[in-house]
């Protein structure tokens, strides 16, 4: 019962702030709501016994991606401008599409008998994740590092602007 209450709190934080991200008229509010969304999702990870991933979620998303997005907000809006708002458009067709898919998925979730195994005694996941990365998933791991390197070089190259000769 207590667990359901904790889960409800985290889920409510996540969903409400996700709605603020998508529908807030002020882009700075959107960026800061994204912070609470990431925190709520990290809480859900903790409830699901993914300890290392909860920490990673906070480090990468809150410490990396969110700061990057805030940089983007600050760089692309003139801060002295009072009006930071942006209007929503095309709401009706988008709402129809989204509601149709949402209904479909809700029926699927409700009707399916999800296969589960009994949850075992909890052990730390970090060492086992590391073993998996170094054995079964070694090639994807190396390719992921290559993807990151390429993305970094590409991002610097695109954003640095024209070099004066």
């Amino acid at each position, binding site marked *: 019962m207590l*667990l359901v209450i*904790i*889960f409800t709190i985290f889920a409510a934080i996540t*969903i409400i702030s*996700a709605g603020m*991200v*998508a*529908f807030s008229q002020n*882009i700075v509010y*959107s*960026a800061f709501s*994204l912070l609470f*969304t990431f925190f709520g999702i990290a809480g*859900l*990870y903790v409830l*699901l016994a993914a*300890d*290392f991933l909860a920490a990673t*979620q906070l480090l*990468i*998303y809150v410490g*990396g*991606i969110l700061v990057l*997005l805030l940089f*983007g*907000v600050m*760089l692309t*809006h003139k801060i002295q401008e009072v009006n930071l708002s*942006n209007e*929503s*458009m*095309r*709401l009706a*067709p*988008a*709402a129809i*599409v*989204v509601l149709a898919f*949402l209904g479909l*998925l809700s029926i699927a979730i409700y009707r399916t008998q999800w*296969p*589960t195994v009994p*949850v075992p005694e*909890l052990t730390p*996941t970090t060492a*086992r*994740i590391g073993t*998996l*990365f170094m054995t079964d*998933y070694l090639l*994807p791991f190396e390719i*992921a590092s290559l*993807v*990151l390197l390429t*993305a*970094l070089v*590409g991002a610097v190259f*695109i*954003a640095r*602007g024209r070099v004066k000769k």
Partner: protein
Amino acid sequence: MPYILCFTVNRFMSPIPLSYYLVVSTLIFFIGMLGVLTRRNVLIILMSIELMLNAANINFIVFSYYLNSLRGQIFVFFVMTVAAAEAAVGLAVIVYLFRNKNTVNDDEFSLMRW
């Protein structure tokens, strides 16, 4: 510290049904989808894409927990890698576009439309 939290949570309480988590992740995914479809600010679209990626991550971890396999968590790491790369490159593109067009409204970016 996260491990102690996980341990106390899972040692003394019975787990809650799988479908609850699926409902939460579905809602987050469709909020993100609605954001992508309706908003015209490129930065908001980027944030909504992050929301959808996070919803997929929740699903991966839910099934990894209830099927007692760590492989779902491995995939979450790859999704996070791609999300970080996507945010870096996306921000660079947005800064470049802003420098050239002086706006972040995606209706203005119609150079490649014929």
